[in-house]
């Protein structure tokens, strides 16, 4: 019931905004809608916590500790992003980069995107999961090309084609999964239900699952931006409007990873932890290293952080691949804190770019002097992303590293190499933008600070203090994956 209302609200808001999206108070509508979903998701979360375990909405929807935490995260980030985009898009409009019609389109698509992601998280059915992933892609493709500049068109086209192809492979994997499941559970829709599959995962046929997982890995891996399937990601992030970049990196990647780890849980059931784990560890490490070294030579600020998203997705994938309670816990935590920190950083980045009228890092200087909130927001966000304690990302990386030292010590050096290079790149690029004297022609603006610092506070929390109920919450979430 609650689940349906949750989905209902977001689609309803999407429809409303499709009509009044260019109205003066459309942003407020957008915010309140997201806020409402957030509230509902909290209620849902408490229900789950109360009933201790999973709440089956209907045959098609279900909630457990894992996906509810992501649902809450999604609704929260969507709310903050809505708040941010209110200020941001108004400025864009004043700069004349978007018109009425596109504002309407933007707002509607934003909510539709949230809706798609919520379905993806809440659905019980792997087929529906696939469909909603595709839907989420399609909803954002046109947002990426919102500015209609050649670059944005190019980026959106690449995004559309590459993700389309990738997701098609995921569909083939799903077909194979269904094939394997059907022979255990019998034909019919129930054979794709996670709740059933996880029950019988041990009996699923290994050869088919092996094939299926390869396809699913490539498919959802493309969405998660794993190297070498990542090429759409930097373009899409750098060319779209910043709020969209924030939710793309903050949420969509997480959803893809979520799909991936669900599949892994199934495959492990029949193949044992080794197979899927090794593939994921491989992808994770490659992504981490490639992204880290690519960050060294970025010129565009949003591309820089796009690569850092690839890097962090790599870390999380590696963690899930490594398996084991510690690493998986680290992985889940990493997904959460990364999406918070990354979206916060993108907020500051967006304002920084607006202040200088460019995304070229060489032209962005003296943010702290120009606008302390933006400057410090960016600086702290980068410290969080670089894995400086006491921010939560350090915590998750600490967990992952310690697990690595225990399970596979020989993998620690490349992991650390990647982390170090990424650290160096981030600070090397960001420090000159933040510190020092103002750039010529920097104009002042009133930034939306609440989202940034709210996120940063939330990122800071787990590094210093993780409330007990949250802790066992995550532990239970981890249990689901094993």
């Amino acid at each position, binding site marked *: 019931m609650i689940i349906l209302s949750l989905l209902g609200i977001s689609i309803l808001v999407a429809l409303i905004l499709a009509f009044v999206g260019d109205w003066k108070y459309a942003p407020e509508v957008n915010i309140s809608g997201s806020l409402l979903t957030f509230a509902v998701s909290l209620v849902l979360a408490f229900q789950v916590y109360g009933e201790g375990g999973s709440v089956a909405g209907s045959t098609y929807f279900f909630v457990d500790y894992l996906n509810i935490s992501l649902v809450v995260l999604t609704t929260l980030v969507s709310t903050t992003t809505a708040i941010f985009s209110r200020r941001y898009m108004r400025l864009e409009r004043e700069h004349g980069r978007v018109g009425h019609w596109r504002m309407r389109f933007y707002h509607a698509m934003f909510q539709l995107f949230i809706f798609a992601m919520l379905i993806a998280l809440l659905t019980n059915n792997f087929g529906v999961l696939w469909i909603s992933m595709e839907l989420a892609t399609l909803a954002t493709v046109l947002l990426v090309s919102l500015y209609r500049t050649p670059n944005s068109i190019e980026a959106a086209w690449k995004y559309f084609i590459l993700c389309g192809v990738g997701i098609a492979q995921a569909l083939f994997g799903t077909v194979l999964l269904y094939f394997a499941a059907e022979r255990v559970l019998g034909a019919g829709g129930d054979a794709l239900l996670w709740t059933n599959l996880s029950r019988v995962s041990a009996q699923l046929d290994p050869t088919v699952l*092996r094939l299926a997982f*390869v396809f699913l890995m490539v498919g959802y891996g493309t969405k998660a931006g794993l190297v070498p399937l990542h090429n759409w990601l930097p373009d899409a992030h750098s060319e779209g409007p910043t709020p969209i970049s924030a939710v793309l990196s903050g949420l969509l990647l997480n959803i893809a990873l979520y799909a991936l780890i669900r599949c892994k849980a199934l495959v492990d059931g029949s193949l044992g932890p080794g*197979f899927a784990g090794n593939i994921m560890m491989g992808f994770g490490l490659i992504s981490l290293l490639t992204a880290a070294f690519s960050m060294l030579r970025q010129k565009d600020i949003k591309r820089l952080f796009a690569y850092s998203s690839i890097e962090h997705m790599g870390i999380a994938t590696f963690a899930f691949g490594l398996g084991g*309670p510690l690493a998986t816990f680290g992985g889940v935590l990493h997904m959460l804190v990364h999406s918070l920190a990354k979206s916060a950083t993108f907020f500051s980045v967006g304002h920084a770019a607006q202040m200088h009228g460019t995304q070229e890092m060489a032209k962005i200087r003296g943010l702290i002097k120009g606008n302390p909130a933006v400057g410090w927001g960016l600086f702290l966000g980068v410290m969080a992303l670089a894995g400086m304690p006491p921010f939560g990302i*350090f915590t998750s990386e600490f*967990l992952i590293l310690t697990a690595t030292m225990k399970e596979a010590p020989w993998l*620690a050096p490349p992991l*650390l190499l990647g982390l170090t290079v990424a650290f160096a790149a981030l*600070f090397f690029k960001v420090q000159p933008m933040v510190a020092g004297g103002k750039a010529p022609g920097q104009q002042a603006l009133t930034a939306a600070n609440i989202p940034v610092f709210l996120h940063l506070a939330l990122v800071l929390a787990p590094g210093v203090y993780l409330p007990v109920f949250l802790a066992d919450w995550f532990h239970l979430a981890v249990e689901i994956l094993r």
Partner: protein
Amino acid sequence: MVVSPLNLAVFSVLLPLTLACMAPLAHRWRTIQISLSFSLLALASLVAVIAGALTVGEGTVATAILSLGLPGLPFHLRLDPLAGFFLVVIGLMGLCASIYSLGYMQGYGKQHSLTRMVVFYALFLAGMFLVALADDAYFFLVAWELMAASSYFLVMYEDDLAANRAAAFLYLLIAHVGAIAILLAFGVIAGQSGQEGFAGYTFAAMRGSHLSSGWAAAAFFLAFFGFAAKAGVIPLHVWLPEAHPVAPSNVSALMSGVMLKTSIYGICRFAFDFIKIFPWWWGVIVLAFGLVSAVMGVLYALMQHDLKRLLAYHSVENIGIILIGLGLAMIFTSFHLPALAALALIAALYHTLNHAMFKGLLFMGAGAVLHATHERNMEEMGGLIHRMPWTAALFLIGCVSISALPPFNGFVSEWLTFQAFLLSPALPQPLLQLLIPLGAALLALTGALAAACFVKVYGVTFLGQWRGHQRPTQIHEVNWPMRLGMLLAALSCFCLGVMPTLVISWLDTIPAQLCGTHVAESASQFGWMWLTPISENRASYSAPLVLLGILAVVAVTWLLLHGRQSQIRRLPIWDCGFAKLTPRMQYTATSFAMPIRRVLGFLFAVREQITLIYPLNHPANPERIQYRLRVRDRFWNWLYQPQSVAAYWVGRQFGKLQHGQIRVYLLYSFLTLLVLLVFLG
């Protein structure tokens, strides 16, 4: 709640933390912000000193577990003699530096945000206290990085200069690499301890863990690398001469005097507390690094003419000396000679404390000079002793102490280190018997060069005549808080130098904790006036008597000579009948160091060029001679250049993959699919 040392220590951590949160509120009223916050920080440091002193004195161990931290791994606190000792070191310097800052920060104009300084200074202090107090790997790393990050912001305080930003970045990068190495070291120990989950990550578990020799070596040397990166051990020292000069002087006093010491603390923890049993060659490696750092550090220092840069290189040198002591202690421990190990350890710790004091004093003095002259280049100074007598006198004490001249404190610890060296014949290893004394010779060289270097510093900066362009009359003595801060440091230098026996009997609980023996009763068996490390027949030194004797003779002669009437005539300098002498004709810092540069030039990347500038009308005799000298650190080109080049090369190669053409991207994903299918499907 009952006042125990641990509570005091926790208080001294909480005060700065709360201050860091509160300070921004007061950003309107600068003077209030300065006076209030820095006096509170001084108070916190004082409390820390008391807590540490009590702990070391009584040898108590107190632990506590906070409700913060990771689910499986709450923050553990532990205050044992070793930690207590470092609390004292940090606190003492923190006290002096905070009092000094009361005056020093007045000198900053509006363009630098005072709040930033206060906040990060407080965080820095708190971080250092926490490093000493932390008792589990996670908390230790949090504290460690808190310390690193806040000091990074402090180094970048005057961020409008690109050079400062570059220095700060270099510092942060190397510090972070070190932190990662330390994290790995913890990971190795905990991973091998066989404990589930987080259980292995408390220091208690690490004390109990028994590692195979290979893993133990891995853990120790990872940790050693990490801590060496922080301590600026050569060749990981490049950040130090960049970062310390550009930081505000009160901060560089803390960084150079205290922050480096936290890594000494870490090495002690790993070697003597966690691993305990190790082969002798570990000690030899530590000793070797110590010797190289000591000699190279002082040599590079001699070549500098930027006052603070020079002092920074001296920190490298002194860290080297401390490591020498530690290395000897490790060697003796590995051969089960606890008494000797205890002596070497005491020497190292004593020097840690001493160096904190005199290096802090010197940096504060340099800050005072900078504050008065706005000049860091010694070649532009001179004769300051007439303008700023207080600073001059106090700085002289610092110079004498760091040059290891009795009866000041630098001498005591270096003398103890020498004694430890002279004990090497007791080793059952003939090779070591022959080699270790050579190390002693290197240490002697270091000491003498340091003396030379500080004759240069003091002579060029404070003595002679003003070389600068601006009128020296504008230069004035610094304000009282700054003098007070320096005075405190100078006093402690003096006391530490004059009553070594008391200090050692106070320190005695630490070797008891780490080596299982005492030195105090043998050290002061002969009364508190005589310091006899092993036995009275072995070697003895009595600082009070030396002091009194010299003072007595000086007083007597002075009285005798001033009994008779004889006036003093002041005349201009005898110019040997040449034309008028100008201040530019004085010996400069560069020329002072020239003989040593000639003798040991092969150690530096020296580039000297002389150009004669001829007037147009008659090219026979040059009108001006230009002399350019560039002395650079070889290690930069040897170690660091290649790395960054390699990183960018790799980056470029990865960049080539991202080709821009969508069909290529499609090909990638297609190939990925095929490869996976071929090998796994």
